[in-house]
């Protein structure tokens, strides 16, 4: 989960790191207890908001109400501004860049530092320092008074299970170091040991407004920790609905469908042996759209996901959808209890099921669903 700047700065302040005096607005009202000039900052998840007019300096009280009502509700990088953080403007001596993250090259946390903070950090020279997860030590030597804040940030990074803690800029002032911005990404897998995270309202990814189905699909796993179903879900414009299984197999299947000339209506996956009910819920969401010409149920040969239970969940959902889907349904599944699953499916007569096991590869079954969906669409077109 990515935190908004105001949420991130609260974590920083709680950890003893200085941030500017501020007030948060979700509607236009008077500014209290802050000294002008102030900076109005749109609270969106995407970066580069300054270029999109998301950061405004206000010098005097007469302009404030006008400027804040301009910013609230504005669309910045496809995100609607719901909140504005107003901060006292800080006298900056020098700007730096500092971030903590995980690096797959060293398979460890790293600290990235630059003497040149501010926008366009991607093009600037940075130094990378390893962070030892055992001792929490990180050997940043310059500037010489940075050790204290680095130690606090490293401690916070681990304690709060962050995947990214980026401060750009981290500024030096006559009163010491101040974090002027905060981009924090929390590690969702650690939510079980962070009671406080449950208070963060749900959100999507930066610069993207989720669809209704995308929001609904995410809820399935939030309410039930057995296996995974719907944590990754995207809607597309195509006509073939997809229920894929397994992290690796699902993306292999998507690539195969596109290679075969098919147009997906969604991407999603379930895996890790989720219970029947979760798969039923996900199926209802996947099929909750008009103009579908096919459903492709696909996965690799499963190691431990129960094929009978998961496919039963799909059939449970199909039976409840009104009117009953008439489009072709191609199933390519194999793994534990697949014999029982196929026996069960053969008795299901109300749908146009096409059953394939391990002898038909994922790409081969992609060709089949694409062909059947095309024929179905042509037949409909011909009748109508």
């Amino acid at each position: 989960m990515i935190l908004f700047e105001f949420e991130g700065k609260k974590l920083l302040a709680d950890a003893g790191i200085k941030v500017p005096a501020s007030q948060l607005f979700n509607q236009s009202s008077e500014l209290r207890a802050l000294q002008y000039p102030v900076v109005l900052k749109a609270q969106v998840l995407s970066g580069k908001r300054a270029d999109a007019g998301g950061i405004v300096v206000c010098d005097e009280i007469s302009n404030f109400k006008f400027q804040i009502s301009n910013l609230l509700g504005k669309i910045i990088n496809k995100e609607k501004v719901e909140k504005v953080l107003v901060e006292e403007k800080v006298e900056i001596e020098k700007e730096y860049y500092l971030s903590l993250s995980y690096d797959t090259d060293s398979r460890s946390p790293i600290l990235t530092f630059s003497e040149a903070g501010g926008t366009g950090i991607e093009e600037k020279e940075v130094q990378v320092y390893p962070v030892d997860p055992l001792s929490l030590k990180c050997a940043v030597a310059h500037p010489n008074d940075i050790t204290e804040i680095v130690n606090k940030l490293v401690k916070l990074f681990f304690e709060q299970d962050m995947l990214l803690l980026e401060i750009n800029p981290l500024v030096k002032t006559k009163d010491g170091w101040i974090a002027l911005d905060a981009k924090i990404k929390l590690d969702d897998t650690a939510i079980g040991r962070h009671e406080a995270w449950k208070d963060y309202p749900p959100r999507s990814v930066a610069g993207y407004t989720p669809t209704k189905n995308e929001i609904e699909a995410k809820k399935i796993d939030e309410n039930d920790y057995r296996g995974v179903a719907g944590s990754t879900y995207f809607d597309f414009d195509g006509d073939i609905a997809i229920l894929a299984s397994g992290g690796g197999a699902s993306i292999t299947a998507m690539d195969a469908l596109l290679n075969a000339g098919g147009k997906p209506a969604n991407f999603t996956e379930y895996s890790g042996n989720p219970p029947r009910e979760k798969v039923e819920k996900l199926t209802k969401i996947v099929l909750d759209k008009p103009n579908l010409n096919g459903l492709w149920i696909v996965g690799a040969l499963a190691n431990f996901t129960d094929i009978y239970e998961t496919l039963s969940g799909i059939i449970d959902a199909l039976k409840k959808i009104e009117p009953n889907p008439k489009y072709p349904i191609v199933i390519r599944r194999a793994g534990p209890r697949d014999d029982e699953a196929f026996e069960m499916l053969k008795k299901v007569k109300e749908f146009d099921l096409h059953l394939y096991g391990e002898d038909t590869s994922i790409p081969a079954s992609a060709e089949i669903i694409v062909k059947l969906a095309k024929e179905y669409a042509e037949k409909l077109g011909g009748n109508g």
Partner: protein
Amino acid sequence: MLILPDNPKLIGQGITGSEGSKALETMLSYGTKVVGGVTPGKGGTDVLGVPVFNSVKELSEKFGEIDATVIYVPPLFVKAAAVEALEAGIKFLLIFTEKVPTSDSAYIYALAQEKGANIIGPSSVGLINPAKKLKIGSIGGADPDRVFKEGNICIISKSGGMSSEIGLHLRNNGLGVSYALGIGGDRIAGTDFADFLMAVEDDPNTQASVIFGELGGTYEERVAEMVKAGKIKKPIVAFIAGEFTMTLPSEVQFGHAGAIIEGERGKPDHKRMVLKESGVLVVEDFDQIAGLLKKALQFKI
């Protein structure tokens, strides 16, 4: 050592739980010996005839030096279980558990480096060697012979499902495996592709390898580096999934925790490009893997 000795002394942590006991059953029926299990509070009991102890220490007092452990404890208990195994001197840990917090994985990896131990996983479906009847973890499910035939190809996959899918594809095309393993799709992989590829350089039963990679991270890129550096010489066929994700917003995670494009890093087309440049055989279509392997093996002979 990533290559275990014959008939290793293997234990299981968390094998009394539901996924763990299911996996244990499939390991035993495959012919892999498990000397004991560890579940705090369940010492003195047994699971499928395997004696259970309260701690790794208690277990090693009875059985002496342990070669390997497979870990099936819940995600937030993995760190403690792995630390316990490492402190007890075990040098090979396979972590099946998924959704392990990244900070815990980083800690475990750093401690293993310090102790000279190897970690496979987290999120590893397991490791199998049909010639040695060795199966650690859930790989291949209850009937591994259906998927993994004895042979000379090593399969290394970020995806558990796709490791079996590749095994099946090879089998359907008359090929078999020396090793097959899931390295997990997490950000921190205790063993990455290159680590295991380098380990099987000296394995006389491995003639070539297949890797299943996907978007995210730099483990595929490291294979290219090691091939270029001459540290990996045996032929490799690579299949890299996730081309379609390039059209979606970045910072989205696709199934596996590490399957995420961050900035310019982790893009599947970049992985393909650097692998091709290094001489790795990159397939566009999954069904071409076996054909390319056969060609590579012929060329070699």
